[in-house]
């Protein structure tokens, strides 16, 4: 063997082996190095607590979110974030109510890209029931409380809704229901339908009803009272009503505390149920009142619950005394006692009513701080009307505590009131001796910690004043007033504490410690929830702009304005925190229903019945149908169509209503109408179009100004008076006019007013335009005053004045007479008549006054009133014939029954100026006030 060769061979082999070995070693070294370096170079991010944001992506329901959603996330690129900050952002986003889920993904380490994955909060579009043909599904839908259409949907609610539905079905006699519920998504990811599949239910027939326990009322009488009988289907809600009826029966027998428990025994194969009613009557309560006529219904409710005997007796005494005082037995006295007999409790009241008195006057003595008139005004005591008392007996005895409270609020903590009575026959003066004591006053008010606002402004925002009375509850109220003051200037988080210190005799130093919060700017206004309504429609109601301070009063006013649009079922405004000193205003709206249909059937009474004769068609049926489509084109406008039909008139009106006119916030109505009506002396067809704008004159007050432009074309199809240039049949009369109206409405209720006043004035100028013939000027004014002169006794006065000038056809002239204007004549018949046909021709001058007094007639019929009235007035053909000495007088009386739409009236009226052949009284049947 050649050693050199071998050496060479081995060397070359060694080199080759060496290089392969080295190659492998390098690879191993690299792998180890990468393994060690990997966690440092390519971290999963957990070891980093804060990151700088390089990019933010927001996705909503799988798509890129619109800008108003992105604006809700209060972070920007370049910002440093941490887990905790992200956690806070997630909670704030969820609290907006817009999202059902929020997830955050991070990509990167020190420079991270964040993705917010949001899912819209779904709302329930429809709730549907399947497999329930004979169930009242609309009613059931209303009875389910946890799930409602147009409300947010949460998964947990479905289980609760299932439980509720099960109970509801049982109440309706459908037992053992198998309910499957599921949600069905719609094209819109924020809306879904909830479906309840009611697969089976069992109905049970009542096999028998047994009544056990204290069957004091005979079994047969109890069973007769019940609706459910043996053999009927068992419906729990009906049984519950039956139990109440049985309790009433027992109560009538004196067992007010009766308890009735029901045991149900269901038998499944046969689907029958046996019911056992266990009656526990408890003691019988007998109430006896001697010495005065006091209704027991006043005292029985005290004993329906299990009350302490002494307490119950005292309650009864107080009620009896109050009842008698109200009737004028001012000095009534009552003694009460309890007698226990076997299973019976007798409550005995011995009443000493004393004499009956009328309260003549209320006199205050020894007062300095108030004058008697001021004190009466503060206590709302009206001056006496002749023969009438201005306060009832029970109110009189409440006056001392009211006077005491009033004085305390004025800084008199030691006021003492003594009541004496000065009797004068059957009348009595109540004399209150008031020892006012010394007044506590505020010597000084200070504000500590106030840097941003002026103390002078803060002083004006509170009720307490230097030199004014000191009253601790008022100081507490002032803390709220100050908090509101700060809120209304955009401050949030302000804390205010008050302290009071006596500085001398009856003088106090009041200090308000203020820790001012931060003043917050509105950065963005974010609108959500509007599917149809345009963004601008909402934005024009918003009183704040980005960059404004978050004034709380403006935010509340914005909410009111949005609600007043009438297109949203819910409006929520929230402030979403951003960086310190800045918030987004989130306006979340829920759009309401847009389509309304209403149908009405009623009666109209234009003619009056002739007294003592058979009525001839005085009451006519009338039908009305109304269709409304709201929020047209998302602008907040409404379109409505109304049709009215009766034997004497037909009317169709189409209206367009919008809250703005050329960008100005004025309620605007565009109407077009067709009508046909038969009146006493003429019948007409009219078609027309009008544009009206209504604007409140003063913010928050019922003072309105309305302007109307009108074009109308009227044809008389029936004319029962002599024809003239303007009064003519079949030849249309066109009128274009502009009118301005002022309305002040300060009544407490539009349909059944008892206090307040109403005033209106309308001036209409009809001018010849667009080939119209009209050329007249018409003024109509009305004033009404309502006064409550005693509890439940109301006096009212109305005056009306109408003046016209120019060419006024019959259908534009004034008419009067009938149940709603002048009750001494039939409808439209006041004033001049056609000499041939004797039908009313109307006039250009009208003056009417109506006086009315209505009062309760039967104490337990609270809505029935008696009325007396006096109407005075006349209608004149021309203004030159207007004569205040030539007015007719009518006197009458009647009954009226109050309804939500006004009183139903039945009246008799005597016109003292009626012709001799028409002296008999007129009978009037009408609904609504005469005004």
């Amino acid at each position, binding site marked *: 063997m050649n050693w050199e060769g071998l050496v060479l061979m081995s060397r070359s082999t060694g080199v080759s082996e060496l290089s392969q070995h080295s190659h492998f070693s390098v690879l191993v070294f690299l*792998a180890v190095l990468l*393994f060690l370096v990997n966690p440092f170079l390519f971290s999963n991010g957990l070891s980093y607590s804060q990151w700088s944001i390089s990019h933010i992506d927001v996705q909503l329901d799988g798509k890129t979110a619109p800008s108003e959603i992105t604006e809700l996330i209060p972070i920007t690129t370049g910002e440093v*974030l941490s887990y905790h900050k992200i*956690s806070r952002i997630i*909670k704030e986003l969820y609290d907006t109510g817009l999202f059902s*889920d929020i*997830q955050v993904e991070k990509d990167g*380490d020190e420079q991270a890209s964040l993705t917010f994955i949001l899912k819209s909060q779904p709302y329930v579009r429809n709730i549907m029931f399947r497999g329930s043909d004979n169930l009242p599904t609309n009613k059931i839908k209303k009875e389910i409380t946890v799930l409602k259409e147009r409300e947010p949907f949460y998964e*947990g609610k479905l289980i609760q809704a299932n439980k509720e539905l099960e109970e509801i079905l049982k109440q309706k006699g459908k037992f053992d229901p198998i309910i499957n519920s599921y949600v069905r998504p719609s094209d819109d990811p924020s809306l879904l339908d909830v479906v309840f599949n009611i697969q089976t239910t069992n109905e049970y027939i009542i096999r028998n009803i047994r009544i056990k326990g204290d069957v004091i009322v005979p079994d047969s009488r109890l069973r007769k009272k019940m609706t459910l009988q043996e053999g009927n289907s068992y419906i729990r809600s009906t049984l519950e009503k039956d139990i109440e009826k049985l309790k009433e029966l027992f109560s009538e027998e004196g067992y007010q505390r009766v308890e009735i428990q029901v045991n149900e025994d269901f038998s499944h194969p046969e689907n029958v149920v046996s019911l056992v009613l266990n009656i526990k009557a408890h003691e019988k309560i007998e109430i006896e009142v001697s010495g005065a006529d006091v209704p027991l219904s006043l005292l029985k409710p005290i004993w329906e619950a299990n009350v302490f005997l002494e307490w119950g007796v005292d309650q009864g005494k107080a009620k009896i005394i109050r009842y008698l005082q109200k009737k004028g037995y001012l000095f009534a006295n009552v003694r009460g006692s309890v007698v226990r007999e076997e299973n019976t409790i007798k409550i005995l009241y011995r009443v000493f009513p004393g004499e009956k008195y009328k309260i003549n006057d209320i006199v205050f003595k020894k007062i300095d701080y108030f004058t008697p008139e001021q004190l009466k005004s503060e206590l709302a005591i009206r001056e006496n009307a002749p023969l009438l008392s201005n306060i009832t007996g029970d109110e009189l005895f409440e006056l001392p505590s009211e006077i005491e409270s009033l004085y305390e609020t004025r800084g008199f903590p030691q006021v003492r009131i003594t009541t004496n009575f000065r009797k004068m026959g059957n009348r009595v003066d109540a004399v209150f001796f008031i020892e006012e004591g010394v007044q506590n006053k505020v010597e000084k008010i200070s504000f500590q910690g106030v840097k941003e606002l002026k103390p002078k402004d803060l002083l004006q925002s509170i009720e307490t004043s230097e030199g004014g009375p000191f009253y601790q509850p008022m100081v507490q109220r002032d803390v709220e007033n100050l908090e509101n003051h700060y809120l209304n200037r955009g401050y949030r988080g302000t804390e205010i504490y008050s302290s009071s210190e006596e500085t001398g005799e009856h003088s106090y130093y009041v200090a308000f410690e203020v820790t001012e919060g931060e003043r917050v700017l509105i950065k963005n206004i974010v609108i959500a929830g509007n599917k149809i309504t345009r963004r601008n429609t909402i934005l024009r109601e918003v009183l704040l702009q980005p960059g404004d301070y978050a004034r709380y009063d403006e935010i509340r006013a914005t909410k009111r304005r949005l609600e007043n649009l009438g297109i949203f079922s819910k409006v929520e405004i929230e402030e979403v925190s951003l960086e310190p000193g800045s918030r987004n205003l989130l306006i979340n709206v829920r759009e309401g229903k847009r389509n309304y249909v209403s149908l009405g059937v009623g009666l109209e009474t234009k003619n009056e019945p002739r007294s003592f004769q058979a009525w001839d068609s005085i009451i006519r049926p009338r039908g009305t149908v109304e269709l409304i489509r709201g929020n047209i084109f998302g602008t907040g406008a409404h379109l409505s169509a109304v049709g009215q039909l009766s034997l004497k008139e037909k009317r169709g009106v189409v209206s367009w209503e919008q809250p703005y006119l050329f960008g100005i916030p004025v309620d605007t109505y565009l109407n077009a109408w067709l009508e046909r009506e038969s009146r006493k002396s003429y019948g007409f067809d009219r078609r027309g179009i009008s544009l009206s704008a209504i604007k409140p004159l003063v913010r928050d007050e019922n003072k309105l100004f309305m302007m109307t432009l009108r074009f109308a074309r009227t044809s008389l199809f029936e004319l029962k008076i002599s024809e003239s240039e303007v009064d003519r049949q079949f030849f249309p009369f066109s009128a274009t006019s502009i009118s301005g109206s002022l309305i002040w409405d300060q009544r407490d209720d539009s349909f059944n007013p008892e206090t307040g006043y109403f005033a209106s004035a309308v001036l209409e100028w009809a001018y010849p335009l667009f080939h119209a013939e009209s050329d007249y000027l018409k003024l109509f004014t009305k004033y009404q005053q309502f006064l409550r002169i005693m509890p439940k006794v109301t006096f009212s006065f109305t005056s009306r004045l109408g003046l016209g000038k120019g060419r006024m056809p019959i259908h534009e002239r004034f008419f009067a007479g009938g149940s709603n204007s002048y009750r001494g004549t039939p409808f439209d018949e006041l004033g001049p008549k056609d000499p041939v046909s004797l039908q009313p021709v109307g006039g250009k001058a009208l003056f009417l006054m109506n006086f009315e007094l209505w009062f309760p007639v039967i104490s337990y019929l609270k809505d029935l009133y008696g009325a007396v009235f006096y109407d005075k007035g006349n209608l004149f053909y021309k203004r030159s014939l207007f004569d205040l000495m030539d007015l007719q007088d009518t006197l009458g009386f009647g009954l009226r029954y109050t309804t939500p739409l006004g009183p139903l009236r039945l009246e008799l009226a005597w016109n003292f100026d009626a012709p001799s052949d028409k002296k008999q009284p007129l009978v009037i049947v009408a609904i609504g006030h005469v005004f």
Partner: protein
Amino acid sequence: MNKKAKRAFQCGTVYSWVVFFILGSFVSSFAQRIDGIAALVNQEVITVTDLRIVKSFGLYDSQRRSQSASLIRSVLEELINQKLVQQFTGENVEMSKEQIDRFMADLEVRFGKQELKEKLDEFGINRVVLREYCTDFLVYKKIISERFSRSVVISLRDLEEHYQMVYIPEQKAKQEPVKQMMDILPEIEAAVQEKNTREQADEWMNNLRNKADIQIRLHEYMDFLDHDEQ
């Protein structure tokens, strides 16, 4: 296998690992879900970060932990109970500043200053925020204790049962001497009191839960949380 083949195999394996580590690094740097709604309790949010903070600082009752559930799930259930109790009682229960200070000091002792700081930095919170979490936990414990401990009645039978069924077996398992019952009566009483209080509290909690709307979405974050536990 000849040498060449063997070498080739070794190189191939190493190359694969290198590629694996390189690719794995990229994979591990892809977007990861790091936070979200772990649970909703009557529409009040518990985030994943809340859960992690409570677990990290031990702000839960470890004795209530269910054997079958994971730690993170048990912590979530505790947090849900805390929220329910808070909502039920409103803002009416307060803790004194001293009690909270004492608890915070105990935390510092338990973890040590350095570790506590690291934990705070991990979540980007400071002591003020930690104090809020601690206060919620302490208020919850106080409510449970005040509501039930006073009303718990311990009978002699309870004591004997606990002594026989719990104490003696425990001592034997630890190979420690079994003391007479009278010698350790206070400890037995305390243990029975705690057990009975917990049982009553559990019953009350179950009632609250049955009436509440609770949604748990923890499963969507388990990958991230498992990684966290490692």
